[in-house]
């Protein structure tokens, strides 16, 4: 039998974007196929919302009101931020696994960019899961936790947009941070610290406007509010300007992180090619 078959490529350098799109789709498909994972993640989501809905409902109303908040806003805020956090399980370690398993070399012998390829796959996975959880929240939060959706329906498209941006930013932070794995098995520890920073400075349970002023200022100097607060803020009684500011912050951080990724990626490849990690 002959395997002579001239193949391949229509031109010498086919568009690389096809590979990235395929990686993204692969990620989406994996999330959709992993039903056990989705069910058990939903279980965490339900438990969390139950626990915190009781907490929020038992906070003194007048103290919440100082920030103009009602328990329903808080419940929806948490429902949004947890979409992001639960949508990225092990968000800070996926990239590190690839490094730790010595798979970098495999990706290096491909025609496309190693980091963008892995990130596209991660984005596919996490955006799909986050959006699934968001869809779920639209049904279960009003039903189970008696908190009607505090925004008009047409604004949901904006929420979806910020969720996508949040996932993109979170994975970017995670991927850049996980590059420390090259120097040794530290990425788990770095991942812990990063995720706790995201919780605290991003405002996982409570919006950043709830924080003391000096912490607010500090928080907004980091990318973390763009991951969580920017999504949750849609559900708070704030002006459109505040929401727009959050969105612009996301765009700004996206640009900064993409630049950082470009530099870190270049540096990482040079390092790997020199030392053969």
């Amino acid at each position: 039998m002959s395997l002579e078959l001239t193949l391949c490529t229509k031109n010498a350098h086919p568009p690389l974007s096809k590979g990235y799109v395929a990686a993204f789709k692969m990620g989406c498909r994996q999330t959709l196929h992993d039903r056990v994972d989705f069910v058990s993640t939903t279980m965490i989501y339900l438990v969390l919302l139950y626990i915190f809905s009781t907490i929020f409902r038992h906070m003194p109303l007048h103290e919440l009101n100082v920030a103009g908040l009602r328990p329903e806003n808080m419940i929806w805020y948490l429902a949004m931020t947890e979409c992001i956090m639960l949508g990225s399980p092990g968000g800070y370690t996926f990239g590190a696994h690839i490094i730790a398993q010595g798979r970098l070399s495999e990706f290096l012998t491909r025609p496309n960019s190693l980091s963008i390829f892995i990130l596209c796959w991660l984005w596919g996975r996490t955006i799909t899961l986050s959006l699934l959880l968001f869809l779920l929240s639209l049904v279960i939060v009003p039903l189970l936790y008696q908190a009607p959706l505090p925004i008009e329906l047409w604004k949901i498209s904006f929420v979806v947009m910020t969720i996508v941006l949040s996932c993109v930013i979170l994975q970017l932070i995670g991927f850049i941070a996980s590059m420390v794995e090259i120097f040794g098995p530290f990425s788990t520890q770095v991942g812990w610290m990063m995720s706790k920073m995201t919780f605290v400075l991003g405002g996982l349970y409570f919006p950043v406007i709830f924080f003391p002023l000096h912490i607010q200022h500090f928080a907004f100097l980091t990318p973390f509010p763009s991951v969580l607060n920017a999504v949750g803020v849609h559900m708070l009684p704030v002006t459109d300007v505040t929401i727009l500011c959050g969105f612009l912050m996301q765009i700004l951080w996206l640009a900064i992180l993409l630049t950082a990724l470009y530099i870190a990626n270049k540096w990482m490849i040079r390092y790997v090619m020199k030392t053969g990690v």
Partner: protein
Amino acid sequence: MIISINNLTKTFTTKKPLSKKFLLPRYEKGTFTAVNDISFSIQAGDRVAFIGPNGAGKSTTLKMLSGILTPTSGHATVAGFIPWIDRKKLAYHIGLVFGQRSQLWYHSPVIQSYDLLSKVYGLDQKAYRQRLNLLCETFKIGGMINQKVSTLSLGQRMKCEIVASLLHNPKILFLDEPTIGLDVTTKAELRDHLLDLAVSNGVTLILTSHDTADIEKICNRVVLINHGEKLIDQSLEEMRRQYLRKKMIVLTTEEENPRYVLPVSWPQEGIHIRSEHYKLFLDVDPKIIALSDVISNALSQTNVLDVSVGDVPLEEIIKHIYHLGKNGAAS
């Protein structure tokens, strides 16, 4: 000339801890030369075995040739590219298989990984389907490409890995220990497939393996390196001729450990003796001592049940060469 390497050298810096102080550890910096001044070239269609003991520098060289590692000095071209500079352009022309690593997505069906790779290399989908069918036929994996990778056996997975590396029709295929951990039948099958592929498709194979049967079956040329230096570069035939001057006589005896039955006066010149259970192995250099003499001598000393005379196996040759290399008498 599809691959040419000139004076390729790779040195790594190493850190040796001097003090165990927690806060102020001090290190002594040293260097370690993994590959030292290697030169050779490979013609298109060659099937080269790249062998040497663990830590000899095989993988380092393979990594430099596939563009993953930048050498400290020296020059190389692979398929017309300098690998570590034109890494991404070279990617379209080479395939890589690591026996101990997987490029398939563990929790997904094999076919999904293939589809993904076809997009990565920007293959024309119709041609890709045709090629996939051909490869499935050659490697007999048609039945398993819809299964999840996690459910495949090691042998099945390895075949799927190799097919994954061949989807974009590379001119050169690097295989790093492709048969490691496989059982005898699967190994034999895999070798047949690889040989078939290389011969019919003109793919240049570069293979590292510790299993000499892989080399004998698939390759037509051997490059042997040790301590980062090239010891031997010749065709398998040449190597045999040079080192197979010697013959191996195997005697099966009634006595256990027959070596100790032999008298001290047994001729020493030109013979190397080993024994195992009820077998006596004699490596004989016929130029020094006649085979018939050795056999008749042995027959008179021991109760021989069976005699066989043959070539010294490749494994013994390689062991012998390593030994020479160690004693600094490689040439």
